[in-house]
């Protein structure tokens, strides 16, 4: 009977389905452009240029940094089957935490930079952690509590930059410019791309290492595969839930801190959440199928979709929303995959289900 389950499980879905999802999305996009009277090749060319041409790559890499961090925010808890949809709130809270420290702690850059990044990570982690006891003690699903906790957190930061932390004399709801010591050092010749990229890549390496080569990473995968098996083996599911959610929230908070500590070096209301880093990060994590090592590839893809669609709008007059449509198509195809595998699993379970 389990042979049957093995046979029904489509061979090599692990690689084929995500690739197929991307191909389907590109074809759908081509169809939309063709229907609108735009040559799809020109459209996609404009999109890639919009992200990767010499004048745009600086900003695209900065977006990639944020999207990669947000993909970690989703992927880390997803490894044990918990879905963190509260990225926006964790991002904003991390950003505001970093801004508060930067504005109030007179310290040299060597001290201030790591402290601000840490504060951002802690801010995001604190918010995400709330969902863990809600899930393990009160049976509130993480997917719901993270989403619901996100909006008030964003609203709180919005209030803070309008009143207690507002820059006096400015009509824009934003903090004053952070002191120079809190500016992440840029690479030579860039203004947006900075040390934040290195920090996020280091975090990614750490995540890949923990996932594949530590007992904790193993336990997370076990809990994700079968909670009953994890409990039987004596693993503490509540502790693992708390740990992965805190780690995911920390990644999101770190992204918030990095954004605030980059051009234009302020926390501006809405500036963290409006670009849609959270959703792009979720899409990238889903496309990577939970494997942290694949996140840079999928995050790069969604960076091109997000950043490049603005260039496409400018050059060939296709609305930038097409980028979001393509993201959505990828997610839809992946969701259909989940449905399909559930269906085959049920077939297999029926086949095995000859209980008395």
């Amino acid at each position, binding site marked *: 009977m*389990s042979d049957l389950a093995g046979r029904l499980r489509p061979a090599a879905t692990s690689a084929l389905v995500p690739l197929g999802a991307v191909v389907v999305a590109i074809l759908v996009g081509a169809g939309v452009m063709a229907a609108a009277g735009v040559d799809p090749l020109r459209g996609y060319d404009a999109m890639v240029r919009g992200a990767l041409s010499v004048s745009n790559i600086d900003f695209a890499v900065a977006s990639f940094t944020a999207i990669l961090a947000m993909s970690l925010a989703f992927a880390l808890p997803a490894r044990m089957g918990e879905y963190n949809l509260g990225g926006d709130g964790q991002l904003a809270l991390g950003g505001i935490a970093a801004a508060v420290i930067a504005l109030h702690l007179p310290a040299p850059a060597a001290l201030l930079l790591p402290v601000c990044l840490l504060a951002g990570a802690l801010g995001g982690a604190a918010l995400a952690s709330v969902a863990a006891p809600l899930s393990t003690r009160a049976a509130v699903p993480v997917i719901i509590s993270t989403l619901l906790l996100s909006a008030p957190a964003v609203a709180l930061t919005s209030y803070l930059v309008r009143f207690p932390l507002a820059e006096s004399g400015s009509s824009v709801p934003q903090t004053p410019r952070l002191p120079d010591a809190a500016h992440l050092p840029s690479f030579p010749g860039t203004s947006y791309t900075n040390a934040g990229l290195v920090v996020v890549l280091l975090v990614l390496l750490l995540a890949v290492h923990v996932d594949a080569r530590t007992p904790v990473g193993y336990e997370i995968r*076990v809990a994700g595969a*079968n909670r*009953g098996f994890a409990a039987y083996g*004596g693993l503490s599911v509540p502790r693992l839930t708390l740990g992965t959610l805190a780690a995911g929230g920390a990644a999101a908070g770190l992204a918030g801190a990095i954004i605030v500590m980059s051009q234009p070096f302020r926390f501006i209301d809405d500036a963290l959440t409006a670009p849609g880093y959270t959703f792009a990060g979720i899409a990238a994590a889903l496309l990577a199928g939970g494997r942290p090592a694949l996140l840079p590839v999928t995050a790069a893809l969604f960076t091109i979709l997000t950043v490049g669609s603005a260039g496409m709008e400018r050059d060939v007059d296709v609305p930038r929303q097409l980028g979001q449509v393509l993201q959505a198509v990828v997610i839809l195809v992946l969701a259909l995959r989940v449905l399909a595998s559930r269906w085959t699993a049920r077939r297999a379970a029926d*086949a095995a289900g000859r*209980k008395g």
Partner: protein
Amino acid sequence: MTDRLPDVADPAAGAPPAAELRGITKRFGPVVAVDGVDLVLERGTVHAVVGENGAGKSTLMSVLYGLHRPDAGTVLRAGREVRLRSPLDAIAAGLGMVHQHFRLFGSLSVAENVVYRAEPGRRGIFDRRAAEQRVAELSDRIGLDVDPTARVDTLPLGVRQRVEILKALHREAEVLILDEPTAVLTPGEVDSLIAVVRTLAAQGTTVALVTHKVQEVLAATDRVTVLRDGAVTARLTTARTTAGEIVEAMIGRGLQPAVNPRGTVSSDPVLEVRDLRMAAAPGAARVRDVSITVRAGQVIGVAGVSGNGQREVVEAVLGLRPVQSGSVRLHGRDLAGLGVRERRALGIAYVPEDRPGMGSAATLSVADNLALGHHRSPPLAGRGRLSPRAVRSQATELVRRLGVRTAGVSAPLGSLSGGNAQKVVLARELHHEAPLLVVEQPTQGVDVGAGEEIHRLLLDHRARGGAVLLVSYEISELRALADRVLVMLDGAVTADLDAADATEEVLGAAMASARSAPRPEEGA
């Protein structure tokens, strides 16, 4: 319930039976769940369909209710052949079924649930009062006390079951199938369910009662059909049969008793369970003053029909379920207050009955499945690192040593056959070299060849001085492996036998009889 009705069940001469299954065969892939079964449900009788887990009872009833289409055979209702493509056809044909897991809307009232899909009312407007009256009327008729306005999710399980029964009656079901109805009930609720079932039969409703509990068969039914391995092994009239006869037909006269050479049993107890008491909970049986001692080099078998407290005792030993009173000691150390991880670290290995839900993870690789519990200690791990290479090489070694047939240690466990998956679980637990091994149903869902290998592995473990607590529903397995056999019935140990005395007749009688066997003064 001793007032068994003497043969009132004889049908009116000539009237066709209320429902009949002829030559039903149902396969799931390569597995034949039901094999050419005939079943006749006479009008106005309570008919027990009994058998062990996996005997095909539920599958057979699912065919009768249109949930499964049979591969061969026909279903007759009141003498006429009916084609049941779905439960809707079955309902239209006057069949009703109460499933093990209730299908009710928790946030709706009793009345709303009962009339669902057959609501009284006019021109699309629901007549709540008529619905509530109808429920009151129906519950009056069969002597049930149910408040039609109560919200279903506020009701205890026993009352929810009554709602399911009322639902079937509201839809004019003349044949009512109850699938393991007492599994979720407290003893008091069981008695009142049996009274309801008898009332229904007296009013002409035909009841098919699916169960594996012999006491209920004797108390509630007129006829008995016993299934084993998908085929009928006995058709009995309740008034003229005995518990022993039913149990014998359920468990069968197994293969020849295997040779079970005695090892040397040391005098040190490894596991001592003393006066264990646990309350009944939804889905869990009670446990009454159970004491068990397992010594090094000894296999203690626990026999009994499933659901008599064996699982709960095992969970108490492992620290998975809280106990009311009593103690569990390992090498003399009281385990009270310790969790699963600590108990396993102290030396308890465990092969659970629920292999897919608990003993393994189908989507993880064979190697990952073999690593659980070993993943924080050398050689797999050291200084905070877990070596994927060590995990794979240990898995390769274990797979080779136990002869697990797999495409490789990186293949998902779900791709293995039942027997090989069970060997993976056993390999992982034996590899702990834990002084105590707790094993439930080690050969369930395992083919004969792999089953023999698993038995050999367990006997080897005993020969090396391991202590084994073995829970099994199969008498032949207990006879093949155990040094002593305890029998559990309704949460208590009702017999403690030397393996040599544990013949099928003796065990069968002990598994069935409630109060005849004296409570033993505990297995020394």
